[in-house]
Each structure stands twice: as structure tokens, then as C-alpha cells.
């Protein structure tokens, strides 16, 4: 199973924010859309970073002024991106090992989606459920 099939069922464009926007606006977007991270994109819509709820909490714990600062000051610049052809298993591994919870997905240089650790867990759960369902059906057929 690849990342494309996971993105297919969440076809909406990913929510992005510009680097010069305030952290306060990022907080609002995260709350409105009930998500854990925003892709930071420049005027050309090219990703230049990612800002997560954890980035904001970490900064806010030592600096309560953070909400007025631009996103670019606290975003993560070194972003691991995926492609639609990436295997679900590889993405799950890279998220576990690097302790990251969001992977933006690029297709031919264009941002097409974002995969969260929640998406990966759900996809894996459904994959296993499906396999169990199929095996059970066959075992029941054997008994019949």
C-alpha cells in the first residue's frame, strides 16, 4: 500500500501558512481545522518548513511573547517529505525513527497532501482488519 491511496480519501488541499504570518494565526488555523501541524509555504506555494503544535508549545513555555512572532522563527526548516509512491511501511518507519508526526507529500515538485501519524495508524489498522476479515471469511467457508 502506498501513500497515494491514503491521500486519496483526504483529497482536500493541505492547510498552509506563510512564514511571515504570526504564530497566533497558526494557532487559530490548527484549532479551526483540528489538525496538529501546518505546512509553511512561500508565495510560490513551495514548502519552506513545517510548524507543529509541539513547536509552539515548546516555544511558549519559555517565551509567552511567541504568539506575536512570525512563524518563520520557530518552524522546522529541515522537513522530510514523501512522494505518492512511498510505501506506507517506509513512511511509518521514518516517522517512528525520526520521531516526526507529519510528512508533507510532494508530487513532481508540487505539494499534494500531508500524512499524519494518525493517518498512518488508521491505514495500518484498516489494512490488518481487512486481512483478518478476508481470512475469517475463508475459514468459515472451509467449515461450511
Amino acid at each position, binding site marked *: 500500500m502506498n501513500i497515494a491511496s491514503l491521500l486519496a480519501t483526504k483529497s482536500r488541499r493541505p492547510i498552509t501558512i506563510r512564514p511571515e504570518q504570526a504564530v497566533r494565526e497558526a494557532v487559530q488555523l490548527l484549532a479551526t481545522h483540528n489538525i496538529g501541524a501546518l505546512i509553511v509555504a512561500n508565495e510560490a506555494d513551495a514548502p519552506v518548513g513545517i510548524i507543529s503544535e509541539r513547536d509552539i508549545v515548546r516555544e511558549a513555555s519559555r517565551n509567552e511573547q511567541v504568539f506575536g512572532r512570525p512563524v518563520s522563527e520557530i518552524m522546522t526548516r529541515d522537513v522530510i517529505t514523501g512522494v505518492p*509512491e512511498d510505501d506506507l511501511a517506509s513512511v511509518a518507519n521514518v516517522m517512528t525513527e525520526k520521531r516526526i508526526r507529519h510528512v508533507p507529500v510532494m508530487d513532481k515538485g508540487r505539494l499534494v497532501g500531508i500524512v499524519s501519524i494518525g493517518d498512518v495508524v488508521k491505514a495500518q489498522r484498516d489494512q490488518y482488519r481487512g486481512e483478518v476479515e478476508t481470512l475469517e471469511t475463508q475459514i468459515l467457508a472451509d467449515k461450511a
Partner: protein
Amino acid sequence: MARPGTDAQPLRVTIIGSGPAAFYAAEHLLKREGLVVEIDMFDRLPTPFGLVRGGVAPDHQKIKSVAAAFDKVAAHPRFRFYGYVEFGKDVTVADLREHYHQIVYATGAQTDRRMGIPGEDLQGSHPATEFVAWYNGHPDFQDSRFDLQQERVAVVGVGNVAVDVARILCRTPEELAATDISDQALEALSRSRVKEVYMLGRRGPAQAAFTNPEIKELGELPGADIAVLPEEVELDALSREALEKSQDRATLKKVEILQEYARRQPSGKPRRLVIRFLVSPVELIGDAVGHVVAMRLVKNELRATPAGTLQPKPTDRFEELPVGLVFRSVGYRGVPLPGVPFNESWGVIPNDKGRVLDPDPQRPLVGEYCTGWIKRGPTGVIGTNKPDAGETVASMVEDLARGAVLTPSHPGAQAAEALIRQRQPNFISYADWRRLNDLEATRGRAAGRPRVKFTRVPEILAALGRA
């Protein structure tokens, strides 16, 4: 207006398609506590079950047994099947909006992905799905012809369809005669002169899509010796590293099975099945009359993407493989439905948890949903469609609770039937299908086979006395 979903006003749902995704969606809906729902399921073919009937290989009858679970769903008094009624032709999305509160598209991935290489359309080069549909008796493909007098065949791909095609090509006539393969295919395959079948994977053994039971079965064929090149199943450094980290037992076992095949000596069986890895076709070569005679392959190396997936990278080393018949099985894609949004690059209906999205401004279309391969693309086993349909049905129930459903002017089962009767008087009901099923089974018993299929629409109509 009262919200539908009660005895007084049942929720009227139509499902387009009757494969596993369609039946699982129906099952989830009918099992919902406190929801009174009526389901009308359409299929453009007279027979239900989609790929369970037309895709799953005839020598895998056990997998087809899932149909018994679908029979239980169909036995529900509020379920109706309308076979031989085509969406977009006999009924349009505009018609359905006038008769149902919710519409579910479950039309699957009906076409194959192309390889995109020169010579792909030479005579003797076919989509594997066409061959599968032909040997399974799909009415649309009974006029297809495959040159089984060729001795060397290539199957491009190592997914489950590629494995099915390779295995069917290697089966003996006696083995095939014990299945429900179409009579026409049985006869043609019994006269087959195929001696060597090559299955071509673009990545290495650790990345191959086939499952361990599938690959084991290929090593136990009575009529074909299996062969694997030792140098192609020796893991490269990246695959070894990835496998050491993941310790994935299924993959470790897969590599072990393939390495054992690489050590086997031919035992003199009439056919040979060769599994190749790390090669991609770059061109099909034709003769003077445009028939394929060979395939040019490039050898690949694996490289890791930033997210760690090992992908093939072509090298500058090439080889030529003489083959007279080619089946491509490099992936499937959905077909756009008339009047329904479609994502061309992914071959699916754009959706959010099964809610069909208007491409711009990406808002859900009221009352329209999708499930199965047309929703997520062609992945997973049959059972994967059950949780997938569960997600779509959860979205449908949520929207119903918010009152976001269509407002049909004729929300009654009789009105829908009257419309269908007018558009397609020869529609096939589930009772008709059960009769047809019994007739096929009876013909099968007489021949010592699971069933003998009716494979053409006029034949089906005649069997049901509709001549």
C-alpha cells in the same frame, strides 16, 4: 420535513456497482441500529459481485466464497439489485438525485495503467486485466483473442494479478478443467503452446507485492518448474539494511522462499516460470507485421526516497528478452463516471472520508459518496473494503444527522422501480441472479466443475427466459 431513516420515511440509498465495496457498504448501512434504510444496488452487468466473479482467479474458488456473505446482505427485505442497468446511460446522476437521499459510487478500478513505452500497442501486447476478464467469462471481453501459440510470454508486474496470470498460463488442462474458468478460455488454454513465462518485477525480492502464499503456490505447480536468477534475489545493501531494521517476518520469509527457488534445478516439467527482479521494460520490439517479438529491458538499482522507500533507478545495462506475447499488469485505475468529479492523476473520485468533493472549492457534494477502489485506489485484499466502507457509511450517517441529504421528489421504491423498468425493461433482480447462479451450478455439476458460467448477455437473458 421529517428526517429520513424511519419506518414512515426510510432513507433511500443507491449504490452504483455490486462488488465487495458495494456489498460491504450495504451491510454497514443495513446493520445500523435505529436506521431504516432501503438500498437499490445497480450494476451495468447482469451478474453481481464485481471482481469476485470477474477478477479472482478461477483456481482460487475459496476466495470467491465471500459471495456467500453477500447473499446474506442481499436477502435483507429492504435490499434490491438492479443488474444490467448502466449508470450514465440507463440512469443518470440527475435521475438518481430525484429518487434517492444518498448515492454511493462503488465502481472500482476498471482500467489498467499503461507502461508508457514504445511498442506498447503492438499486436500480442495486452493489459493483464483483459486476459483475466476473458478467462473469467466477463461479457465485455468474450471477443478478445490471445495468441497462446506463442512459446514465450512476459507478464510485466509482480502484484496479485500478475501472479494470477502467470499461474493460469502454467496450469495444466486437467487443473483448469476443475475450475469455473470460461469454456472458451478452457479450450484455448488447453491448446496453449506456452513453454516459458517470465514475470518481471521492477524492484527487488524484498519489495515484491505478491504475498507468501501466492509465491509458494507458484513453486508447487504440477506443470511448471519455477526459476529465479540467484544474482537477482541476493539482497542489495539498502534492502538488507531496511530488513534488518524492520525485522519484518513476512518479508524475511519471502526472500528466503525466493532464494530457495534460485537453488532449484529444473525437474523436467513441461513449462518453466521465471521470476525476474530489478528489470523494467523500456520498449517492445515488433516484426514486419507489427507483432511483438521481443522486449528490451533495463536493469534497475534501488535508491531510497527521503521517506525511506526503495525505488527503482534504471542503470545503463540493457538486455533483450524474446517474447511473443506480453501482459502488462503495472497497476489499475478508476474510470470517470458521467457527471461525477474525478481526479485524473490518481484515477479516483476526489473525496474526504468517502464524501465526494466538488474539485473547486473542494466542498462535499450533498448526498454523494464513494467507497472501495474508486475511493482509495486499487490496494488491499477483498476484506480491506469492509473498514473502508465503514468509514464512508459513518460519513453518510453523520451527514444524515445534520440533515445534509438530497431531497428527492420521488423517494419511494415503487417510483424507482418504475423508472428502471422504463429505462431498462430487461433489468436483472437478485432473484433472477439466484436462478442464474443455480443454472450455472447445475451445468457445473454435470461437468464436474464448480460452475459453468454464462458469458454473454444474450445467453444470460435467454437462460432467464427473456429472449
